């Protein structure tokens, strides 16, 4: 709550013309946004590009933030929109590898092999992060987005629904099916340890 109020103060000051407040606001959220972008794109450069676009979008529309929701929820709505734009512009290798929500579509040949790990390994990611990315990559974009916001951003399903513009129940269903799919993947690779 304190952070929420701090955000509001910073936004008010930024809108009043204080550039230091604007910079502080960016610095406060850049790590979360960057890691989100990194998980979505799997590439340092793409993540930085996407993050820059996100903050430019925030800069341009900060005056529209009314404070009804948390700033992070509003911010992730922009992140979501920019991610969708990025997907439309180019299809990075990490995006939408699996677009199906159907769990039955999971087959053994879809399982991430060592070759699939290679691009991430080249991206100066830690081994752990590379492994997590490997599995996230096997989820559909919709599922990844829900997992991202639930697990990494700690958002409620109601907030997720607001960001993705789906019902709360839909986001719950997507999250649950994502977890089940992930469980199957992990079981198939015995990578649980």
């Amino acid at each position, binding site marked *: 709550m304190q952070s929420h109020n701090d955000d509001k103060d910073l936004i008010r000051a930024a*809108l009043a*013309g204080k550039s230091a407040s*604007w910079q502080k606001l960016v610095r406060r959220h850049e790590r979360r946004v960057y890691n989100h972008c990194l998980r979505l794109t799997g590439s340092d450069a793409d993540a*930085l590009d996407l993050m820059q676009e996100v903050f*430019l979008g925030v*800069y341009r529309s900060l005056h529209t933030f009314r404070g009804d929701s948390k700033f992070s929820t509003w911010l992730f709505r922009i992140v979501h929109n920019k991610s969708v734009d990025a997907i439309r512009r180019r299809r990075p290798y990490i995006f939408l590898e699996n677009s199906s929500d159907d769990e039955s579509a999971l087959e053994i040949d879809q399982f991430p092999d060592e070759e699939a790990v290679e691009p991430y390994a080249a991206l100066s990611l830690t081994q752990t*992060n590379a492994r997590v990315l490997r599995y996230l990559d096997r989820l559909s974009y919709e599922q990844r987005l829900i997992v991202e916001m639930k697990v990494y951003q700690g958002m409620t399903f109601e907030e997720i629904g607001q960001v993705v513009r789906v019902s709360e129940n839909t986001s719950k269903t997507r999250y649950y099916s994502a977890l*089940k799919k992930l469980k199957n993947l*992990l079981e198939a690779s015995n990578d649980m340890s």
Partner: protein
Amino acid sequence: MTCPKTDSFLFQYFTGDPATRAKLLKEPHLSTCSDCSEKLSELLASESYLSTWEDVSVPSWNSKKIFDNGNSGVPNFWFQWIPTAACFVMLCVFAFNLQITDYGTGLNISFGKKNLEMESFIRDVRRVQELQLVEFNAALAEVELIQTKNNARLLQTVLEQTQLYSAQNFDRVVRLFDAQRIQDLEDMRQEYQQLVDSDYKTLRSLQQLASFVSVSNGIIQ
């Protein structure tokens, strides 16, 4: 054997808030159902696997673009209306300085101050046009008058000619009727004469017959 409650239980657990999760963990069913507890731990492991992501610190990035824009502060809510307001002001200036004049022959649209010289010139032209119109109307009336007189004269001549011809025709018709009447009378007279002659012959024949009869009777007696 698969527990029928498992899926519903897991769905509630993983989509519930922390309080719901804690409450579900205390469910007696969970301690007795191996199926539910096993699958719960599997999914929990999957969820916690995602949490192994280690946040990466942000590398140096080109934040200049963002912060340079921010030097003058984030665009204020009211600033977004500046272009609209400017457009509105320009529209007002345009609307209030727009002159639409009707010169009779059409509309004249002009922008800015009134052009007095032009207006004076146009007034003169209109005056000349009006004078020309009056003269034209007078000439037209004169022509119409002459034309009317000519028409009347022509009509009179025609009527006179027509009357003359009519009288001659009437005399001719009367004469024709008279001749026809005389002819008819003559024919009637001749037919009457023939009839009379014929009757006379008949009478003579009757007289002869009577005299013959009387003569015959005398002889017989």
